[in-house]
């Protein structure tokens, strides 16, 4: 397949910030695919070199991103409110909703000093990347989302939390977020 390449020439000074990004949508699509392949290869190489340590590295990176994202919303003690606000902020990259089985009345379940909520991740850039690269789900890259959610929840609620993967699928993944109130 022949790809048309068009060179852009012009004067540029380092202090000048271009007012808008150049290129058309096809350029972005190509860049996205290259990035997906790059991130996928990096994740699998990381796992090859560091073994299970890869998960911790990716988790830490995700957590940092989560803290940054969490700063964009108001602090609250209400888990459902926090989840709704985070869903709006993370919506573009990670579209998620709270989920409950049909027999359960509330989204949140209180268990001792813990509150548990199930989250259904529908749109997820991590899943897209894994499928684009042909890598299995539940690998180190999924820990990015783990860290991301934990970081965001920690930032919004000032409390410790953990996220467990219940089930992964091609269209949605179910995760359990556990908040430990004693860990404040």
């Amino acid at each position: 397949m022949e790809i048309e390449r068009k060179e852009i020439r012009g004067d540029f000074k380092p202090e000048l910030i271009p007012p808008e990004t150049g290129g058309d949508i096809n350029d972005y699509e190509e860049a996205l695919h290259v990035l997906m392949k790059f991130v996928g290869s990096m994740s699998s190489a990381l796992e090859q070199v560091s073994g299970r340590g890869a998960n911790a590295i990716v988790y830490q990176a995700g957590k940092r991103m989560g803290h940054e994202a969490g700063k964009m919303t108001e602090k609250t003690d209400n888990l459902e409110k926090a989840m709704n606000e985070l869903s709006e902020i993370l919506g573009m990259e990670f579209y998620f909703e709270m989920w409950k089985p049909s027999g359960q009345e509330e989204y949140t379940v209180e268990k001792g000093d813990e509150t548990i909520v199930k989250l259904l991740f529908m749109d997820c850039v991590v899943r897209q990347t894994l499928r684009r690269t042909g890598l299995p789900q539940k690998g180190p890259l999924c820990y990015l989302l783990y860290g991301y959610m934990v970081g965001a929840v920690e930032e919004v609620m000032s409390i410790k939390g953990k996220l467990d993967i219940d089930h992964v699928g091609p269209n949605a993944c179910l995760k359990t977020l556990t908040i430990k109130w004693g860990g404040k």
Partner: protein
Amino acid sequence: MVKIKVDEDACVGCGSCVEDCPNDVYELDKEHGKTVVVNEGDCMACLSCHEICPSQALEHDDIHVAKRLYIDRKVNKAISKII
């Protein structure tokens, strides 16, 4: 509300969807050797059953379809010339 259709002509009764579904949405009707939907309300549209079904006998209506950014249109265009 998710609506699930099972194509009874296509279903081979392997039970893969029954085993794979985390929410016990399906059961295997042993008498007819086909999958039946017993718990539609608990379906979260993960579509694991779609992926595992060897005969593509399942259909989910009215679900959130996740963005498929990994589909490379250039590759698809090239493949469409062959298929």
